[in-house]
């Protein structure tokens, strides 16, 4: 659709990971400009794009929050529906943390351990590991049990790609497979086992943390910011010897880090009151020392941050050809 009257408030949809940052910015924005508080919908990245790309107009959102980059297919659908100019802004980095209860055994894992424990078919063979000890004799002999986000969430995809995938590719055979048979590689490297090993949860990280508290030998997968806020209950599990700290995620030495984005519908700029100011506020909050840092958002490397700032200022549309 391309109709619908103009709204007098900003509407953003998408990633539950970006949601807490977007809400903070929204509040600050309303405070500073006197505009209405933006409405931020937490639908998940893909769901956000679906609504974002439905068209232009007051009944479609102005901003899509995303915990991954927009896909080519999504970009094309957008274009098909008349959403031609999209501004991409990377607002920062998020870390996907592995954690355990503070009274837990104190795991120290490698990407390969995680892969061998959680892949459905590690290196093409059915997974028979029941305890962590089966995976790596150095690990404690407790049952493998990992609470994580649902298979439909962006965090789940990122976890598969960033940690499992790398654990898999540590094996040269698999790395070779990647070039010869992409589908097979994906099946072998990123297919996860089900319960009771990998236990899907709803999109509720606090629930995962509460469950860890009750199940001290289980691991959990959640956003970095939750780790920070629940230090008394959970502790981080280092992967490849690196703990998910602010610095380690920011400089990329921690494996589970991924970029976060917002996408702005250019056609709405100047029509929906305050949209440009909102973006500016976002950039300000996400900047080095900005208030989003305190909430657990990790600042992007300088070059990326500069591009983002420029994009935001000039409302430069994204070139679809760079997408996958």
């Amino acid at each position: 659709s391309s109709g619908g009257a103009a709204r007098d408030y900003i509407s953003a949809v998408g990633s539950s990971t970006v949601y807490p940052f977007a809400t903070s910015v929204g509040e600050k924005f309303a405070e500073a400009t006197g505009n209405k508080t933006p409405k931020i919908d937490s639908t998940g990245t893909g769901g956000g794009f679906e609504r974002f790309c439905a068209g232009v107009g007051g009944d479609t959102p102005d901003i899509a929050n995303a915990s991954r980059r927009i896909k080519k297919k999504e970009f094309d659908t957008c274009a098909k529906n008349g959403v031609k100019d999209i501004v991409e802004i990377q607002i920062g980095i998020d870390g996907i943390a592995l954690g355990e209860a503070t009274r837990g055994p104190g795991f120290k894992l490698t990407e390969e351990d995680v892969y061998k424990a959680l892949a459905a078919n590690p290196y093409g063979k059915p997974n028979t590991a029941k305890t962590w000890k089966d995976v790596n004799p150095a690990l404690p002999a407790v049952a493998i049990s990992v609470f994580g986000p649902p298979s439909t969430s962006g965090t789940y995809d990122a976890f598969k790609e960033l940690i499992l995938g790398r654990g898999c590719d540590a094996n040269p055979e698999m790395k070779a497979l990647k070039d010869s048979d992409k589908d097979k590689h994906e099946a072998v490297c990123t297919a996860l086992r089900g319960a009771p090993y990998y236990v899907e949860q709803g999109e509720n990280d606090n629930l995962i943390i509460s469950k860890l508290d009750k199940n001290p030998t289980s691991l959990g997968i959640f956003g970095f910011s939750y780790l920070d806020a629940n230090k008394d209950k959970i502790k981080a599990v280092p992967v490849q010897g690196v703990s998910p700290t602010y610095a380690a995620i920011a400089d990329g030495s921690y494996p589970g880090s991924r970029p976060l984005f917002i996408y702005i519908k250019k056609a709405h700029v100047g029509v929906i009151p305050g949209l440009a100011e909102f973006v500016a506020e976002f950039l300000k909050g996400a900047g080095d020392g900005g208030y989003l840092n305190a909430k657990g958002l990790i600042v992007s490397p300088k070059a990326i941050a500069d591009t983002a700032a420029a994009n935001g200022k000039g409302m430069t549309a994204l070139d679809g050809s760079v997408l996958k």
Partner: protein
Amino acid sequence: MNRQTAPTDWKGSVMQNRIAKRYAAERRFKLFGLGAVLLSGAFLAFLLFVMVGNGARGFTYTHVAVPVDFKAMPLTIDTARLGDADANQMIANAGLADIVAFAADEALGDGGSALISENAWKEVRSAIIDDPELLGGKTVFDLPASSEVDIAAKDGAKGALGATVAKLKADGKLGTGIHWPFFKNADATDPAVAGIWGALKGSILTIFIAFIIAFPTGVLAALYLEEYAAKNRWTDLIEVSINNLAAVPSIIFGLLALAVFINWFGICQASPLVGGLTLALMTMPVIVIASRNAIKSVPPSIRDAALGVGASPVQVVFHHVLPLALPGILTGTIIGMARALGETAPLLLVGMRAFIGDVPGGICSPSTVLPMQIFLWSDEVDRGFVEKTSAAIIVLLIVLLSMNAFAIYLRNKFEQRW
């Protein structure tokens, strides 16, 4: 005695044993029944107890006494404009936040500004707007503590923070009070200013819309089906669809609402209007079923009596049947509404799972509802939201309990016996 068989020997030991066993079974059965009632009651009591235990703290907050000396740190604004609509912004832009943070650091020692809520300065701002005189002097404000301090003060934390809190307490700078903003505000990212009123008002508006649509439609449909409709295939069809709708999983109503109200009619998203319409569709069948039962229990003799003095079928229904069935209809309706009040799943799909920072102004403004607010808060990073979540649950339960109490009252007040 002209019997074909010997009379039963009721006094014999076989019979006496048997009877003793039957009585034992009777006692056991009755005990099971009592047990079932007590068990369900215990579940309920336990749930309520746990909820209230967790949530009561969410209604209070910890405040820290911070003296702010505007003489030392003047706030340069035009006091004449404090009555304007944009006064809030003007003060914010003048840097009041920094002044308050500085004052806190000064009063509470290094890192003192981290002990108060990041929105604490807004309290000072409203105080200034209320009384511009404050700008000329030094005032001690009771500012909301940050959520770590709040939790530490309530739980008695250990470590450095614990020590700080203990010291503040000893100095008499820490106090607790009822957290009024919780009852006045809408959602916020800071638990110190986040409130339930936005969601509560959203729920009230949504339920109101659902009620004014579902109630008349449901009652009229029930009247039609019970009183006028011929019993044929068509009414069977209507009956089956209504019973089925009462059993359809609520999420499916969300799919319908998404397709019809939002994509087709383009009714304002995430608004009480669209939420209410969705819930109306969901509750209408419940109301129809309850109403039909109530209407059925009006004795036919009343209808005969009215017809007998020459009332038309419409008059019979509206003068006699409906008033007599009303208590039953209302109880069914309230119970249906109570369920709608606690419903989340269908509303997920019409965009009500959203951060709404303003109290909804009308039925078309974006809004969320209580269960959704609970759901959203339960996933907040800030630990201060844990008790807010429980407090919100208590608010929801209170609304629910009052609706149920109202139902009981109606039932007992108007119940007619024939």
